[in-house]
């Protein structure tokens, strides 16, 4: 409850970088931060101070600020989206920090996510993976009645668990190999559990993984750091399922 509101004084070490240049850390104080503020609202306060001092504000990606758009990011003290399980940075509140804390803030680090500015990275490689096959090939119009094909609640729930992915990239940032496998698995698994997505399941897995390789993501070596970092808690089984489809398509030439 807000009656427990406290104020913190913190020291931030923030990665600053301009496009095409070398980056470096800069240290800023963050003073009188309410424990009810979110992490991004804390950065807003620091930025207002920088603007008043005639300095460039810290660039970071954010939009919905309610944990669903997937635009926010940040490595906070070495952890993707910070210390709370199943939480995006925008939903991380300052009550999880202590007065006097030093906080290191870095962008996602991966070859396939080049830095645009400060904490902002280019994640368009994720879009290109989806373009390689993250869809059911159906045009608008002419779909049969929605209840024509029953889908068991169990399968629908498995699909939904996977579909919860917000495409933020924490899985890649957390992975020692910068693999995008949890991200790919989330989409591929959603579709393979639904009759509408089944016909293309194997080819989809092959196409998406092939595209990820081309984009410079690493291979999955089962560290499962991705699962631990995922703010939507996408389970590791989505990767196992996708590897099975990938193997069928790549080695056994199955459709």
């Amino acid at each position: 409850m807000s009656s427990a509101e406290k104020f913190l004084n913190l020291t931030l070490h923030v990665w600053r970088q301009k496009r095409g240049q070398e980056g470096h850390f800069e240290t800023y104080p963050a003073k009188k931060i309410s424990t009810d503020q979110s992490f991004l609202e804390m950065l807003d306060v620091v930025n207002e101070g920088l603007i008043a001092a005639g300095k460039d504000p810290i660039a970071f990606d954010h939009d919905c600020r309610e944990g669903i758009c997937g635009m926010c990011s940040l490595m906070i003290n070495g952890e993707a989206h910070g210390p709370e399980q199943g939480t995006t940075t925008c939903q991380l509140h300052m009550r999880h920090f202590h007065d006097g804390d030093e906080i290191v803030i870095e962008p996602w680090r991966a070859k396939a996510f080049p830095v645009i500015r400060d904490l902002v990275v280019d994640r368009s490689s994720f879009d290109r993976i989806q373009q390689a096959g993250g869809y059911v090939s159906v045009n608008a119009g002419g779909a049969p009645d929605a209840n024509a094909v029953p889908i068991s609640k169990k399968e629908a729930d498995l699909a939904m668990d996977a579909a919860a992915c917000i495409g933020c990239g924490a899985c890649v940032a957390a992975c020692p190999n910068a693999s995008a496998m949890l991200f790919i698995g989330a989409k591929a698994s959603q579709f393979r559990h639904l009759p509408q997505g089944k016909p293309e399941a194997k080819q989809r897995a092959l196409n998406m993984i092939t595209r990820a390789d081309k984009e410079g993501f690493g291979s999955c070596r089962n560290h499962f750091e991705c699962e631990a970092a995922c703010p939507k808690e996408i389970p590791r089984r989505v990767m196992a399922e996708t590897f099975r489809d990938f193997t069928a398509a790549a080695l056994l030439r199955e459709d």
Partner: protein
Amino acid sequence: MTASKSSVDYPLSDVKLEAKSPSGPIADKWTKHKFDSKLVNPANKRKYTVLVVGSGLAGASAASTLAELGYNVHCFCYQDSPRRAHSIAAQGGINAAKNYQNDGDSVFRLFYDTIKGGDFRAREANVHRLAEVSRNIIDQCVAQGVPFAREYGGQLANRSFGGAQVSRTFYARGQTGQQLLLGAYSSLNRQIETGKVKMHSRTVMLDLVVVDGHAKGIITRDLVTGKIESWAGDAVLLCTGGYGNVFYLSTNAQGCNVTATYRAYKRGAAFSNPCYTQIHPTCIPVHGDQQSKLTLMSESLRNDGRIWVPLKAEDCGKDPATIKEEDRDYYLERRYPAFGNLCPRDIASRAAKVVCDEGRGVGPEVNGQRLGVYLDFTDAIREKGRADIEGKYGNLFDMYAKITAEDPYKTPMRIYPAVHYTMGGLWVDYNLMSNVPGLFVLGEANFSDHGANRLGASALMQGLSDGYFVIPSTIASYLASEKPARVTTAHAAFTEASTEASTDIKRLLSIKGKRSPREFHKALGQIMWDKCGMARSAEGLTGAIADIKKLRAEFWENVNVGGDADTFNINLDYAQRVADFLEFGELMCLDALHRNESCGGHFREEYQTPEGEALRNDDEFAYVAGWLYRGADKTPALAKEPLQYENIKLAQRSYK
């Protein structure tokens, strides 16, 4: 209380706003219209280029569907990926008149509920089409692999939403918007892969280019490089969402803005009913000064939660568990026994304001007032079990706990109304075309379907209806009479508009004042919330207009933007959005001031029934207001589209 008949002076425009609703019985209009419309033959479609601004439900569905038909499409969004458009944040669901529950639903009932829910300020023909098409949307989304909630028998599940007595809402846990948007995004990706859609992310639209009275292109700024670019097309679709961020604090994403629609207004498009804004009743209350956004708790919670405040003001600081049943006021159940906690949003919001203004609000005091009411699940958990409630609302309860550090399974949620959706937008005819030929407006960005109040689970329906099913048919009528690619970016209108855009940016950067764009935005938001929020008055609005003018003048002398024009400059982008809000806020207040009646989300204190309900004035105000720009610091001119109700009788809205 009486107010002067005209509390504000404005000129009348000679622009004619013709709805072009087809003739004939309401149920046949859309079918007949599709047949009567011109077509573009398949071989010719590839000669046309369509510019789609925005990639939410309306934009992504329109872009992908037009590309499937063979048109060349450029799609633009300000986010780093089209998947992040703010449609993604819709939680509760999407309505469709499927009648799968056999509970008496029909196309006509959805049509009726939407017209009545909008307090008789929407156009009948558009709303009926929306209700018809609603059924196709669910079919389409299932075909795309959208994982809707299902019953054990494998059939689709439904739930109830405010303003309806049937269960017609389809949902995907508390993430319906996300799943529908990802469905549209997947179709968009398929077309990007084929090359029919060229996607431009991290790009904002700065101007509309009008050539010989027709919309023929846009000017954009690349947020990464700062590059100003010109794009020519045979038609322009604005699918840029609502303007709720004019209030600073809202449930909108941080980047949501009015820039695209406002700049189109400055180029001649009529802006309709800007004062119709929706204040959503179930949001987490404001906690402090540094807050940047308000978080919505889905309206679906009102299916099982009971809303109450203490009967006596002296109980408001107590632990709710210690307040006895007879000392609680379940005010919605008391005032609206037929709909109870499921009455429409505008009514539930106003009722919450009333009890808080009476001093019966709960939660911590902010600026000397407790602004919150309880949303209590104790009875539902006792009756249905914790597992059932967790299954339906688990992610919403988790989100609430994260933000407030309170456990809603044990202590009632505290909620308060917050700005959520804007029913106003650019004026469009039945074809979704504005009064500027070639400029189409879809989804929340247009004004057409929700009247003065939108019912829950209808925004997703409208966005997808416009994009998947309406525009593919209606755009052909316009394009068929246009020679393809008749204008290129070599035209002088593009050079002029892009020079203006660069000049504006230079001007903003050269001010080098003392106050940040955020400070101006906050100050504007405070004016709008106090004077143009849940309750409005002629006196308050008149004062607000003067205050906004003053604030805007200060902005152009004292804003501190910093940085350069040709880099990733977050503050420059923000300053541009705030500059437009500072003009647009005044237009909203003007519209609210001119409308001497209360309807839906527009509540003028001077016009209410003895019970405190909205009092419409159908004799004078049963029209759509369309404001036309006449130049800086000139009062815009008003054009009116009269609303005719041929199928539903105008009546005072009752949810008792």
